[in-house]
């Protein structure tokens, strides 16, 4: 897992450096953000039964390191920790396993207002990696194990995200932001494995995450 995390971090930093425009007067900001998160479930079914599986509603927290490339464009390196237990819901019984994910990604932001405007809406989008992890105590006789298996293991997935938000300057260097992101990854099928004879319907997992953040501009 550490190995996977190291590769995820290195890739993200590389992206950040490539996107930076060294010719512009640079303005940076650093801050923290977090709130809640939730996923869309995927369907799983075998010949006789079906259910839904995926990370459940949870919370998030992370930090950002951003830069203003000009008055309207900016970029951000973000690390976000998401705590979302894994959930399998089926008629034959519900199963749960502790779950979390780590997201590291770089986003490009377009502001709809100049920096001197107090309130600046923006849109954002980017790429990165996401590391899904099953945690907690495994149950040898997990309910509905004939559909899917919630496994205490880890899996790195490439991730894309996009979203919208608004920054509100509340001091000379302090900015408050409120934003909404959608992380898109494939289904982590080691952590959420389809049982023999069962199949997970769909390969995309949407991860909805509203954030509240505060940054310091320097």
């Amino acid at each position, binding site marked *: 897992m550490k190995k996977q995390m190291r590769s995820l971090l290195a890739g993200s930093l590389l992206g950040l450096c490539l996107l930076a425009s060294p010719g512009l007067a640079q303005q940076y900001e650093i801050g923290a953000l977090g709130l809640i998160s939730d996923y869309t479930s995927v369907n799983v079914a075998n010949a006789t039964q079906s259910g839904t599986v995926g990370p459940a509603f949870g919370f998030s927290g992370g930090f950002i390191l951003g830069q203003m490339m000009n008055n309207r464009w900016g970029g951000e390196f973000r690390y976000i920790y998401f705590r979302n237990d894994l959930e399998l819901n089926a008629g034959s019984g519900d199963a749960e396993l502790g779950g979390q994910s780590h997201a590291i990604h770089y986003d490009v932001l377009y502001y709809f207002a100049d920096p001197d405007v107090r309130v600046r809406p923006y849109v954002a989008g980017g790429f990165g990696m996401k590391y899904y992890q099953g945690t907690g105590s495994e*149950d040898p006789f997990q309910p509905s*194990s004939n559909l899917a298996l919630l496994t205490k293991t880890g899996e790195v997935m490439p991730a894309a995200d996009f979203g919208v938000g608004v920054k509100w300057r509340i001091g000379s260097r302090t900015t408050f932001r409120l934003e909404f992101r959608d992380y898109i990854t494939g289904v982590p099928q080691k952590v959420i494995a389809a049982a023999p004879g069962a199949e997970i319907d769909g390969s995309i997992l949407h991860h909805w995450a509203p954030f509240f953040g505060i940054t310091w501009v320097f």
Partner: protein
Amino acid sequence: MKKPSLVWKEARSLVVILLLSGLAAQLGAQVPFTNSVGQIIPLGGHINEVAIDEARGLIYAGNFSAGTVEVVSMATKQVTARYTTAPIGAATTGMALSPNKKWIIATYVSAESGVSQFRGLTRINLNDPTDRLSIARGDRPLGVAFSADNIALIVTNTGLELFNPETGQFRELLALGETCPSCAELPVDVTLHLPREVSQASVAASLDARWIFGQTEAFVFSYLARSPGVGTLLLRPAGSVDGAGSSITDGYGALVREPVLQGVSGSADGLSFMAGHMLFNRALHVMADTPIVPEGFDNPEFIGGNGYDPDKDYNTVYFAFSDPNGQAESNPAHPIHSILYVMDADNLRVRQQLRTAEQITGRIVVTSDGDELYAVSESGLMYVPIGGLDQHPMLEVRAEDRFVTFEIDACERGEGITKTIRIENPSGGPPAQFSLTSMLTNSGQRPAIRFQPSTGTTPADVKVTVDVGALGPVQGATTIPIQISTDAVNIPQPAFIVANIKAVDQRGTLVPANGRFMEVVGDPFRDRYYAIDQDNFEIVVFDSTDNRVLGRLRTGNTPTQGAVSRTGERLFVANSFSEGMTVVNLNDLTVEGMEFLPWQTLGEGHYPYSVTADNTNRMVIGVRRSPAGGIGTCGSPGRVDFMHAISMSVTSLDTFGVVTNCYGAIPAVSATPDGSRVLFAQSDGFMQVFTTTDNEIIFTRQQFAGGLQGTVGAGPDYFIVENNIMNSSLVPRGVFPDSSPNVVSSGFAVTSDGVGVRSVRPLGGQVDTGAIQRIDARDPSQTMGQIRLASPPLGPSARMLELGFPFTRSLSALRDGRLVSTSSAGVVELPKGFDSGVEVPVVSAITSAADFTTQIGSGGLISIFGRNLAPGTAGAVDAPLPRTLGNACVTVNGESLPLLYVSPGQINAQLPFGTVGPSNATIHSETGISDVFVTQVDPSAPTIFQVTGPDSSQFAAVFRSENFKLATLSNPLRPNEVAIIYATGLGQVSPLALPGVAATTVPLQVVGATPVVEFGGVAGDVVYAGLAPGFVGLYQINVHVPGNAPLGLQVPLTVTMGANTTAVSVRIVD
């Protein structure tokens, strides 16, 4: 045949006595027997009488050959005086001491035949021994006794006379051959049935001297002294047969067996007296005829005597019997020549047998406190400090240990089963040495019976071990006598080991009880049954609801059969060595007493053997009658009497219609359920059907010329004799096909729902279980198969067989439909549906218990599938595992398997570690034994157990050491962690494991060859392979999951030992 003259007979008897006297003198010089009781008081000549004078501390001994009375000090045991009582040439024939201790009278006759002048008596005044009066008589005085009025009764060769020693006057009481005015009234004047002369007599008074009892070779008598010189005489002819075989009386009132003429002694209370070996009451009924003296014993060889103990609740009588040849004993260096029996005074049950220092040859007298016993013996007198037996080494096996019963399951083939018996000195005296052996011939190399210790001294707890394996392939009950050699002065009561090897298909519950139960009688009105115990002369009363012993009731001598009266108020028990029926009040469970078959009205002696109840509330009794014959004599030993169950009146019809009540053998009787008809069956093959309507025999048949034995029974409209069934007219319907030629029928009962049930027992010498079967009275060929019994029914005793009564009634129905049977170790109780579910077990497959494949390894756990494997479901609760579970067991190659679980469809068991190759498996269930099922067993054949999940999904029994949970899809294995695999069939381990025993933790028991364990083809490092500690037959393999093991949902996991591999799949994730 010409009768010998009385003179000649007298002379002959005198010659015999003289010869015996000479023999006694010779023997008297011999060294006394060791390990015996008694101090010999040598007296010259031949002593034939003894009297005790406690007031003076003297013993008077009548000296036959010297014609004197020897006076012996009780204190010094020395002769203090000698009174000459007979002239030279005369012999003392009798002697008596008056109750007031003033007079002693000795009678004498000539020692030479034909010398008539030496006949008479001598009276001595003990207060002044010089005051002697000798009176010559023309007849021959043979014996004398005093009554309480100090009047002597003298028995002469021609009659009885009273003699007043004060006046010297005689008064005739009885003149043989003439009417007797002093005699009690009887239906027939018995004097008409007596000879005119007798030649031998013995006479004695009760302790209170109110009664005088006597015996001659022709009659026995009792005399009640009512007032001085006045009394009532009761005579009973003995029906004697002289030495030439000629009857000297015509037999009225004759005894079934005449008492051996050695001596008469009266009880303290005058209620009974001993005459030779027989016990009479004062009405001259035979209360008991001890079977100790062998049948047909030659009288002149009999040496013995008897005497009552006036103490000990009037219930002790001593009886001496000497076997000139010595009784067989385990110690040939110490033959038993003279035995003093201590017996119950009401039925002659032997309580104790004492070796005496020399042979007791005549009368026994006991001091009033019961502590000192003096007896006429070979050398003179013998003194036995009977109250001080605690000074002698004695030995007995504790009463409750005399029948050591081993209930052995047929599947038990272990080293042995052990029980402890107590060997003790009952008197608490000095220790006695003992040595124990058994006579069982064992089939193996090691003894089947072991005693630990086998030698020692009392008191001792001896462990008796029955080595079931060494017993060999026997089934049923085997009774093994324990041979006891000892230096004790007593002959221990016999003790037995009863090894009842019970297979699970043997039906019934054995209720162990001490005794030899000849018959068991179900009470149709109560929840009780009664077992007739011929060893202890008792009726053992059982509560049929829980088989608890409610009590033991005394019977007469040698009880044989019993029956409940038609109204259910009483139980009548036939005492085959007495003239009495024991009557028990069943409402309050008390013995009402002995009701006798009265010789006075029957005209002869009858011993009851068989009894049944008819519908007129009579007890129908098959009897053995006097061989001398009586009124209406027919010369045959069998007859049928009737005793009314309320009035107790006894009738004996001379004829039943046109058929004479006279049978060639003792009839066994059995009434139909309604009591209207009674079957008589004799061992000579004759059978009759008696109807109570007209008291007639309506059918008679000699169907079985070869003789009959076994059981006799009656159903509603049929009869059972041996293994034959006949209709109500004795027309044969068929023969029951017995399962073995080594069995004979033993019992028959009709249950409350009218179904007939019969049982069979093994023939003598055969070891078998016996069997029981429900019968089809219409078609014997359709009768249900025989069901083996938990313990075989008892056969008739040797004495019954000897007397021509080879019949048994071993089976009886209880009122709730259950059945009870006699057995060699107690009673067997059978449920009403004893033969239900008789489908035998059928084996369809034998697999590994782990994965239900046919890959089976030595020492492994197996599952046996089939039907009727066990009557119910049961599981073992603890180790060592039982060999029998839920009335089922399994043998493989003859060895029983430890069982974990049994059910009708499946049995789980452990194979022995040594079992390899094609193996024969057999299921034993209470419904039968399965056919042999052959299965292949390899030295090692691993199979991994399967675990069923909550949703019935199956998982291999592979556990993760990470969390010690089952490795499943949702709890997958990880590379480099240790997987714990549970399997079976990995073969023998080291240290060696025992089948059925839990594996040890220290040391661990590891397999000889390490198995190869692979995950997806990649071998893992086996850390441990051996038995799982605390479990039976369960192996554990601890193996590292290789780091390079393939990942996946279904990775093959294989375990290989030798040529055998087993495979499961596991999930491995990183």
